[in-house]
């Protein structure tokens, strides 16, 4: 049985109201989505919370490691852009949240994150933890039917959410946005500072 996943219309809605002046040229989601809050685990099976990333620009992306095209393409792009920030790259964390915890064990997450370099942190969690985070950012995902090898596809949001160092949701990017706009968006949030406060959950 195929669980049909209905697409998230957020990206479209946001695109429609994206004409408001925003220096970054990505969709400004500041007024639409709540501050960063989650409890998940990383590739070392350590509990990671949003507040662990206070003071960092967080680039949040949902996916799964058995996704050969879109997920690694997105991560390669994000990791490549962040590398171009030089020393400032240390103040950016790319969080890859796997919505496929059954296959994405901590060991798999660890090896996967490592392949994309030091700024990528691969996370996952229980269905409850993942569901809470997905609902918070109005992201949908779903598991397709398994084939003869037990392989299955996972449909997932292709949006990239960007948070400022205070944990506030600020920008939404998609594959259609240019490298220059994405980089400018991240740089703008780094330059704005605000590292002294944290608006997300502790």
């Amino acid at each position: 049985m195929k669980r049909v996943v209905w697409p998230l219309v957020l990206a479209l809605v946001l695109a429609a109201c994206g004409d408001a002046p925003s220096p970054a040229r990505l969709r400004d989601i500041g007024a639409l989505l709540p501050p960063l809050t989650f409890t998940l685990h990383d590739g070392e099976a350590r509990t990671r919370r949003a507040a662990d990333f206070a003071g960092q620009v967080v680039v949040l992306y949902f996916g799964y490691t058995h996704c050969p095209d879109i997920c690694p393409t997105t991560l390669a792009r994000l990791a490549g852009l962040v590398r171009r920030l030089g020393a400032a790259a240390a103040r950016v964390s790319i969080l890859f949240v796997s919505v496929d915890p059954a296959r994405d064990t901590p060991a798999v997450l660890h090896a996967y994150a490592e392949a994309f370099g030091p700024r990528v942190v691969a996370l996952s969690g229980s269905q409850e933890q993942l569901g809470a985070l997905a609902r918070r950012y109005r992201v949908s995902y779903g598991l397709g039917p398994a084939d003869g090898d037990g392989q299955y596809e996972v449909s997932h949001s292709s949006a990239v959410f960007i948070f400022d160092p205070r944990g506030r949701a600020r920008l939404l990017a998609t594959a259609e946005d240019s490298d220059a706009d994405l980089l400018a968006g991240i740089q703008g949030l780094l330059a704005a500072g605000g590292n002294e406060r944290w608006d997300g959950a502790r």
Partner: protein
Amino acid sequence: MNSAAKRLLLTLLACWQGVALAAPQVSDAWIRWLPGDLPLAGYLTLHNPDARPHTLVAVHSPLFRRIEIHRSLAQSGVARMQAVARLELRPQGQVSFSPGGYHLMLFGRAQALRQGQTVELLLQFDDGYQLRAPFAVRPATAR
């Protein structure tokens, strides 16, 4: 060899070369490496120099348990994949398999793959033509 036999051989050679020239060709073929036994994506550009269409129907390699032709779709903010059973190359046309679009999905490695290595995949067309194409194994971060 007498001259008649030589002529026949040359004719056959010319004929064979003509077929080879008109057959589909591959360029820019690479595979994005991922750790463990995660499925991999293969990318390439297929060229059809022929005056008639050619249709890619399967891809094989002893290095992988299964290879499928896929296409990624991003509809209304959701990423999904679609299996493609046949892919027609129009006369003098080309099709790019590139990140976020068409890609080969490679399941089940028979042996470990190294970044920097080159592996050969066999592309099979509907008229029985088979094309051996070398794919470079690039790092996960390749673009």
